[in-house]
Every structure is written in structure tokens, then in C-alpha cells.
């Protein structure tokens, strides 16, 4: 089971609304390389990991990704919450507003809704870990693109933190992958 802790993994305090940034950032919520996809990809793959080490790592990284979903959601909420209707229209978020108001909804930056295809599970540990390593690198690249799209230090700070986490997760997945290869998994 999971237990909720009433604090973010890392602080998010964005004082300045920025609707365009909210529109881009949402991809790390509901996009193919986003945190929601990552969380459930790992939590879904962990059942068929071949040993306790793999079960532990995928459980723990999957759990941390849930905390990243909360951080990204918080960023989108704070960037959006003081927006006027005029600003919503100007940022091209009027179609989002029509369906969801100022509520959160997991899509990519183009508005394509989240899909379970992002879970990408084969049941083969080598294939699944390769997927996970690629996913972490793609998420790192997207975080760098997002950092380039803003000059608000309140937004950049948490994005830098999240980018480092992708690097750590990639490393741990790779270490597990290398160990499984050594053990003879194809």
C-alpha cells in the first residue's frame, strides 16, 4: 500500500503565473515521457522482475515518481491558478478551459491525452529495463527543453532537481540491467 505524506519531495513555490509554461510543463504530467507514465510503468513492470533486487528498485523508483507527479501537478496548478479568461485565451488554453476549467488534466504539450500505451511493459526484464533507461534519458532531455523555455527561477529550481533524479534513476536501472546481463538474462 501507499501512505501519503503532507509535503512535496522538493519545494515548489511559483509566485508568477505563466500560462504558456503551464501548457508546456503539462507534458511531464501526461506526456509519453512524463512522470505519470514513469510511475505506473515501473509499478506495473515490477511484478515480473526476476529477483528481489529488481522488485525493490522498481517499487522504490515508481514510488518516487508518484512524488514527481505531485511536484509537476503543483507547478501546473500554481502557474495557472491566477489566470484571467483573457490570458487563458491568449495562451491557447481556451480548449483546455472548455473541458476542464482550471482543473488539471494529463496530456502532452499538444493536448494529446495520457494513454496506458505509455506503460510499455513486455514482461521481459531486459526489455523492460531497456525501456526504463530510455525513458529516463528522454525525460532528462525534456526537462532540459523545459528549462530553456523559461527564465523564472521558481520554475527552473524544481526542474533542475527533477532532471537530476532522471540521471540517478537511469544509473540505477543501468546497474540492474548490467547485473541481469551478467546473470545470463538475454
Amino acid at each position, binding site marked *: 500500500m501507499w*501512505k*501519503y*505524506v*503532507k*509535503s*512535496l*519531495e*522538493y*519545494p*515548489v*513555490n*511559483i*509566485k508568477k503565473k505563466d500560462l504558456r509554461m503551464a501548457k508546456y510543463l503539462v507534458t511531464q504530467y501526461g506526456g509519453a515521457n512524463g512522470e505519470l507514465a514513469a510511475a505506473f510503468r515501473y509499478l506495473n513492470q515490477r511484478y515480473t522482475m526476476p529477483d528481489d*533486487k529488481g522488485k*525493490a*528498485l522498481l517499487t*522504490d*523508483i515508481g514510488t*518516487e515518481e508518484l512524488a514527481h507527479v*505531485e511536484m509537476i*501537478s*503543483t507547478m501546473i*496548478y*500554481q502557474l495557472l491558478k491566477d489566470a484571467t479568461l483573457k490570458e487563458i485565451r491568449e495562451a491557447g488554453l481556451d480548449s483546455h478551459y472548455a473541458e476542464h476549467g482550471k482543473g488539471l488534466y494529463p496530456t502532452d504539450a499538444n493536448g494529446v491525452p495520457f494513454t496506458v500505451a505509455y506503460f510499455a511493459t513486455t514482461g521481459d526484464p531486459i526489455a523492460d529495463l531497456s525501456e526504463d533507461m530510455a525513458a529516463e534519458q528522454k525525460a532528462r532531455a525534456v526537462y*532540459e527543453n523545459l*528549462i*530553456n523555455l523559461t527564465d523564472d*527561477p521558481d520554475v*527552473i*529550481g524544481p526542474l*533542475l*532537481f*527533477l*532532471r*537530476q*533524479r532522471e*540521471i*540517478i*534513476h537511469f*544509473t*540505477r536501472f543501468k*546497474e*540492474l540491467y548490467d*547485473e541481469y546481463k551478467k546473470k545470463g538474462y538475454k
Partner: protein
Amino acid sequence: MNNYNDYYNYLNNNYNDMNFMTNPNNMITDMNYQQAFQNTFMQNNPSKDVADTFKGFKRGNMFNNLYSEYNGFKPQELKATGEREDLILQIDEQRFATIDLGLYLDIYPNDQAALNLFNTYLNKEKELKALYESKYGPLTLSSPVQTNNWLWNDGPWPWEVQK
């Protein structure tokens, strides 16, 4: 020292001061602990050496050799806006260290030095959490809070800008 901003300044001013390192009253006694274990840790540890919790938390990475800066961006300085958030940051910091060391230990479960560090940070987090909860209410639904009132609902919730 209970103030995160003071703590930051204190750390900056005293980083290279040996007296600071051996003073049992300072907030980061775990740094001493960490140094004591660093040699064994490095022998067993392909990740070389770990940062102190302050640095590790700020930049999102406890492992010095895995840290890679992007495009000259430096990690943000975390400044609390009040006493409550101050304590939250101290808790977050210790918890982050256990999260990152935890992932390491998943892969290297026999690294005793890393396990000792993990336990140090876990205990510190527990102490800080108890202090926070005695002042500001429960952080989890199962936190022991000595009161007849239902405090769980009380904000601010984590996604609200902290004041």
C-alpha cells in the same frame, strides 16, 4: 539551530572550519559521521563519495560523481518563508537523503557504510518529523498527535504556495 536560512549561512561560513566539524552541537553532525565512514564507503562503492544532505537535497543528487550540471545552471538556494516551512525543508532534506541512498542500497545491499548513513538520516528525519508534528499537526494520517481535534484537514496543503 532551527532556522533553515540560518543553517544555510552557518554552513557556508563554517564549511572549512575544523572546529565546526567536531562540534557536537551543530546541525550536521551526520557530516562528521559521513567523513568517518567515507573511506570504507569509497572502497566498496562504485559511486565514490556522497555529498552532505544539504548539498545533496538542494541539487537533487547525493552522489558527487553522478551529478551533472546543465548548461551552467546552479541549484536554487532554498529559503524558507517562515518557521513552519523551515522545519519542512529540514525534514525534506533528511528524507531526500534516505530516498537517494535507498535506491543505491537496492542495488548494493551489502554496503554497510551506506546502510549506516541511511539509518543516520532516517533517525534524524524521525526526530524532525516529531518536532514538526508537535507544533503543526500530522504529516501522515497515522502520525501520533496528542490532541482530541481532527487536525489532518488543516492547510496549507503541499501544492499551495507556502507562507
